[in-house]
């Protein structure tokens, strides 16, 4: 686009914003003296700022589009290239490990607490990534399984005195069971219809918890949920937080480990095939229904375990923690992080959960900045922060003996 046209476009945008923000930026009612103050200077600022912002925006937009037209060779995200390079892989992973191990000892308790929430979202994100990112099933009621886990721990502890370590595997099974139960009737639907029905299911679980007083204590919730013990030993409050922190780290590692293995297995490939083309997928001998159900059930498994951690950490739960907004946040983690990309989802969870906490500095503009960042990511990186990369297999040429043709594929 010629420079003259760009300037013209930015001028129009600036003018449009000046009109748009006129009522809030310019007019101010002084209620004491009952007069209206017109702050014309603000109008000027809005105009100038929008003008330049629009120029910059356009510049980057054009750069992204020009980048897309180039060959496909070098669009592997930086972090994947780091992990594939044997020289950098170990030091890089070492650094990451050292950071996460030292974290609770360096930073004050408040930061550890926030990090635990973020890591729980990593688990939730990786679980939902199976459903949305890999299998392509838009699930807006994912929070229901999170609630199942949290209430499983709270109630089993309250009534039967079961400890954290007993409930954790139980809740995983319970999550799977609920995944199958809820999945069975709704998975015949797809796309938008599935999204709406799952959204309904998520709300049903919350409303049941809110109104079935005898069962769940209703909106008053359940208090005094004990923290996990270490072979019967109960830590003091600060150490409990650190302890939970390391439990979450272990669970996140386990999640990454299993999800990565699933992704590059028969079932993982079937999920992606199902996402890409349902009919072709069936024609390749894949049972559509079974494959969808396993994705739904496995996704629910991790959500339930996340719920147990949440209950143990906050020691108090009520239905208000499991609203539709929670589902949306987890979905944002997956979409902004990068659909189908485990590393992307981890990055997405850390950014999306930690950022609002640290944006408290800009107080009332917090949500505005947060929203703007999400829009920017989606415009400039539509595949998410770190997009998924498929496993690469290496083969030697066919002249060599057949058995040796396969070298091991590098893991991504």
């Amino acid at each position: 686009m010629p420079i003259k046209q760009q300037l013209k476009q930015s001028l129009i945008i600036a003018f449009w914003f000046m009109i748009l923000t006129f009522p809030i930026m310019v007019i101010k009612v002084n209620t004491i003296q009952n007069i209206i103050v017109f702050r014309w200077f603000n109008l000027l600022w809005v105009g100038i700022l929008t003008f330049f912002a629009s120029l910059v925006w356009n510049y980057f937009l054009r750069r992204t589009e020009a980048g897309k037209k180039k060959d496909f060779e070098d669009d592997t995200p930086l972090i994947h290239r780091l992990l594939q390079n044997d020289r950098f892989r170990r030091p890089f992973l070492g650094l990451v490990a050292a950071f996460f191990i030292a974290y609770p000892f360096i930073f004050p308790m408040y930061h550890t607490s926030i990090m635990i929430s973020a890591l729980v979202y990593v688990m939730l994100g990786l679980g939902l990534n199976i459903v949305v990112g890999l299998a392509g099933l838009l699930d807006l009621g994912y929070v229901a399984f999170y609630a199942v886990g949290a209430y499983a721990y709270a109630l089993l502890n309250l009534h039967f005195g079961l400890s954290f370590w007993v409930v954790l595997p139980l809740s995983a099974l319970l999550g799977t069971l609920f995944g199958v139960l809820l999945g069975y009737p709704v998975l015949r639907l797809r796309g938008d219809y599935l999204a709406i029905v799952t959204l309904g299911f998520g709300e049903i679980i919350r409303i049941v918890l809110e109104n079935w007083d005898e069962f769940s204590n209703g909106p008053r919730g359940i208090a005094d949920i004990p923290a996990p013990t270490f072979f019967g030993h109960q830590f003091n409050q600060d150490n409990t937080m650190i302890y939970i922190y390391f439990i979450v780290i272990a669970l996140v590692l386990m999640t990454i480990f299993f999800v990565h293995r699933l992704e590059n297995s028969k079932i993982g490939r079937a999920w992606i095939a199902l996402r890409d083309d349902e009919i072709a997928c069936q024609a390749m001998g894949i049972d559509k229904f079974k494959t969808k159900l396993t994705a739904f059930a496995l996704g629910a498994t991790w959500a339930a375990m996340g719920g147990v951690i949440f209950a143990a950490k906050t020691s108090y739960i009520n239905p208000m923690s499991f609203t539709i907004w929670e589902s949306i946040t987890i979905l944002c983690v997956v979409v902004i992080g990068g659909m189908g990309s485990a590393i992307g989802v981890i990055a997405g969870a850390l950014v999306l959960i930690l950022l609002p906490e640290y944006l408290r500095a800009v107080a009332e503009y917090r949500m505005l900045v947060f929203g703007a960042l999400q829009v920017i990511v989606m415009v400039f990186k539509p595949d998410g922060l770190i997009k998924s990369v498929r496993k690469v297999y290496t083969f030697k040429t066919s002249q060599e003996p057949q058995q040796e043709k396969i070298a091991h594929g590098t893991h991504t």
Partner: protein
Amino acid sequence: MEPILNVKNLTMKFGGLKALDDVSIAIEKGQIAALIGPNGAGKTTFFNCITGIYDPSMGDVQITPPGKSTQSLRGLKPNYVTERGVARTFQNIRLFHGMTVLENVMIGRHCRLSSGIIKAMLRPPSQREEEKKAVYDSYEILEKIGLDKYVNEMAVNLSYGAQRRLEIARAMATEPFLLLLDEPAAGMNPKETKELDDLILWLRDNENLTILLIEHDMKLVMSLSDRIHVVDYGKKIAEGNPQEIKANPEVIKAYLGEESDDA
């Protein structure tokens, strides 16, 4: 001997429309058979009825896999049809665009692999062995079809002709005895069509496949086919070898009439 595919009185109704009306087709083992007819004659519907995507309104589809007894495919879901050894390709290419070429073929191996979720998570030796073999088998198929240089390329980046061949490779990976090709030459240039011609003959002779294809390229159909079935408006109007079909007045009237110069 029983025909390998025996379709009896197949009728498919969509509301008031009869897309297929009492069509019977039998295909012998080792044949290359062609199904031709003008656009909208019901050819793809016929494929969809065999492969379980549609449940036919009336009639029966029977297969006799080599060395096994005759069985009906009617009412089976598509994945079970594939499991029983009937594979297909699609008229509008339906590859998995989020996957590499190799992974596309590995999807075809899916129904021949046994490892489940637990094994995928724990990776015992049996699963590793199976996975390695799946990679190897898939690569071998790509080598045969001539796509081995693209193994790690995303399927969507291939040329049109290569995508069509990849669809055949993927269907081959399911270990079929009967291969249904829906317009395999559509959109190919003459050189690619020639290569396809060789490939189909090779598949029949070296992989012991029976092939049924839908095709509009008359040159390809006439040179390849042992037997041609013609449908028009959902009804079968003729059957015979290429010479008989070329000479059949009803076929010329319905279909070849406009195109008899090429044929």
